[in-house]
Each structure stands twice: as structure tokens, then as C-alpha cells.
């Protein structure tokens, strides 16, 4: 049987490329916008692109944008058509400036997950092999930033925030704009619970299975659940049938699928669960 090769041309082409962005400074107003986005979604992640401009030989992040997306506590997804439409909407004089790939990690570590790394590789292809800067930020304002050159090469970027003060009125205005955008563009990935969780209350599985549950979020309240979009509904039945992707394994980082039967309760794949928790019994 012929071996299916792994495409790696970008590894070779970018092996000798020098990184472009050793340092990135986020302008004060852009930073207000970023903080608004990542905090407005509460316990959920959010993702988008950012505008990088070169001024006096220095690179500045001057704006952040979000696109229509589905958000969860450990995952955010924007479909390919939304990304394409975003590229189409970039004014001609800003082409090539919206290069920054960013997303938030709520309050967790800002290290990239395997989902992130796989996606950066796909993004590199869609960007015709041109390296790009990446920022992962959390609500504690911790950052991880690097330039993605290939799956074998990422160069650290130092991130600074401009120290200029922003008027309260400006902050209020940016906040109002971001709030409207988040409400319009972000769809929560809603869990539709069953009689079982309703009769036993919402707290039992939070306490028992902890915050590792990929569906755990403060606003996952059984009684107040409002299902707005059928496409975003996961139906957790009594025998824990799951549809749709549910993030990634907390142990090995592999993307979880509907075959991972424990994922309804714990963000761990079948293999890791059997290896690390052989005595775990599904309730």
C-alpha cells in the first residue's frame, strides 16, 4: 500500500525565513477592545483577527475584530465562509494588515492546545505559506505570543501594551460597540439537559465532575435554558449520546468526537479514560 505522505513544503520553505514580528505593541484603544471581547463572553472562549500596522519600523496592533462564531468554555469556531467574507470585507488599503490570529483562554493557561496548533497549520496553507503572528490571551491579561512559521518553527513575540490613558467616554463607547458585536456574532454552544439532570439539579455534575467537564459553564442552568438555534443544540440523553465536537482531551489533547463516551461528563477521550481511570463507571 502506498504511504500517504505528510505535506511539509512550508517546513522547508520557512526553515530559513527570519521572523518579522519580534515585538508587537497593542495600542491603548485596541487593548480596551480586546479586553471587552474576552470579558464579555464570561466563561467562554472567543476568537478573531487583528490588524497589525508598521509605523517607524515598529509593529503595532491597532485593531481587533470578531467574526460570526460558536463559542464554548474551551472552544471557539468560525466557519470558512465567515473567514472568506471577512477577507472580502477588508478595504484595499488594509489588505495584508489583518494578519493577527488571536483567541482567548478564559482564565486558563495561554499555552496553545493541539487544536490551536492544527489550525495554525491550516491557516498557514490558506495564507499561501506566509508566516503570521498569534496571540492567546486570558482574562488575567496573560499572553502567549509567537510568529507561526511552520509546525516545526514558532518564534516568540514580546507583547507590550501602550501606556497612554484612554478617556472614560472612549472606554464606554468601545464597550457598547463590542457588546453589540458579541451579542450579534457569538452563538453559545448550548447543552440541552435531560430529566435526569433536571431532577437531580444542575450542581451535582459540576461538583462531582468538576470544571473539567467541557460543557461546564456558569450559565448552564437547566431551568433557565433557552435554546435559540436548533443547530447548536446537543442533546444529552440518559445514556449520554453526544452529537457534534466537544473540544479536546484534557490529557492527550486529541480532539474529542462523538465516539468518546465519557466526554459528556469529563473532557477526556476513551483511550485516556481507560488508561488513567480504568475504574470509572458512567453514571
Amino acid at each position, binding site marked *: 500500500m502506498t504511504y500517504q505522505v505528510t505535506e511539509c513544503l*512550508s517546513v522547508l520553505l520557512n526553515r530559513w525565513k527570519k521572523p518579522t514580528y519580534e515585538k508587537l505593541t497593542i495600542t491603548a484603544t485596541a487593548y480596551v477592545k480586546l479586553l471587552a471581547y474576552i470579558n464579555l463572553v464570561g466563561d467562554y472562549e472567543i*476568537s478573531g483577527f487583528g490588524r497589525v500596522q508598521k509605523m517607524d519600523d515598529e509593529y503595532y496592533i491597532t485593531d481587533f475584530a470578531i467574526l460570526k462564531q460558536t463559542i464554548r468554555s474551551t472552544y471557539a*469556531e468560525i466557519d470558512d465562509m465567515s*473567514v472568506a467574507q471577512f*477577507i*472580502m470585507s477588508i478595504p484595499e488599503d488594509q*489588505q495584508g494588515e489583518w494578519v493577527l490570529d488571536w483567541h482567548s483562554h478564559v482564565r486558563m493557561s495561554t499555552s496553545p492546545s493541539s487544536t490551536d496548533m492544527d489550525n495554525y497549520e491550516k491557516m498557514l496553507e490558506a*495564507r*499561501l505559506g506566509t508566516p503570521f503572528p498569534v496571540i492567546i490571551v486570558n482574562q488575567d491579561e496573560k499572553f502567549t505570543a509567537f510568529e507561526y512559521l511552520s509546525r516545526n518553527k514558532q518564534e516568540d513575540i514580546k507583547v507590550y501594551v501602550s501606556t497612554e490613558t484612554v478617556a472614560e467616554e472612549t472606554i464606554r463607547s468601545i464597550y457598547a460597540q463590542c457588546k453589540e458585536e458579541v451579542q450579534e456574532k457569538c452563538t453559545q454552544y448550548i447543552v440541552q439537559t435531560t430529566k435526569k439532570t433536571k431532577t437531580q439539579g444542575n450542581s451535582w455534575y459540576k461538583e462531582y465532575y468538576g470544571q473539567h467537564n467541557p460543557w461546564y459553564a456558569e450559565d448552564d442552568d437547566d431551568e433557565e435554558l433557552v435554546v435559540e438555534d436548533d443547530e447548536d443544540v446537543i442533546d444529552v440523553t440518559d445514556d449520554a449520546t453526544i452529537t457534534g465536537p466537544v473540544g479536546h482531551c484534557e490529557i492527550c489533547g486529541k480532539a474529542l468526537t462523538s465516539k468518546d463516551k465519557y466526554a459528556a461528563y469529563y473532557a477526556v477521550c476513551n483511550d485516556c479514560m481507560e488508561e488513567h481511570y480504568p475504574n470509572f463507571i458512567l453514571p
Partner: protein
Amino acid sequence: MTDFENIINTLNNGQQAPEAPEEPAAKAKITLISLNGSKVDEVTVGMTIGDLREKFGIADSTLVDESSRVLSNSQVITGDMKIFTSTPKQNG
């Protein structure tokens, strides 16, 4: 098809008539636009989107034209085109 003119010329003069110059293959200007800006290249008219993917190493990306239509691999390039290269953004 039999080239009678050539045959007659060969019989009369003992040499072949020069062949009509071949028309150069028509070219199309392709502008590939990604988040990192645009790249312009010329390809031969008649090339398929599948061939274009191979030429530019964009096998897994979503290719969309100016009218937001997703381009299929069998689609043939008939003239100048602007193509947007995209992929889903998934973070976890």
C-alpha cells in the same frame, strides 16, 4: 485530417510547407487573496481549480470567488479571477 496542401507542396517541390505558427495558449490572471494580502499569477486558460490548488499548495483550503461561491476542483478557469483563500478558524 489530411493536410493536402502539404502533400501537394511536397510532391511539387520536394519539401514540406512551413507549418502555420501555433497560437500561444491563452493566459488568465489569477489574484489569490488571503489574510496576508494578495498574490498575482498567470495560469493557462483551461486549467482546473484542482490544478490550481496543486500549483499553489492549497489542497485543503476553501477557495471562494468574488460572488462568495465556493469553487469546486473540476471548475475550469476561463479568464481572470479573484480567488479568496480561507479555512475554518478553530481554537480550543
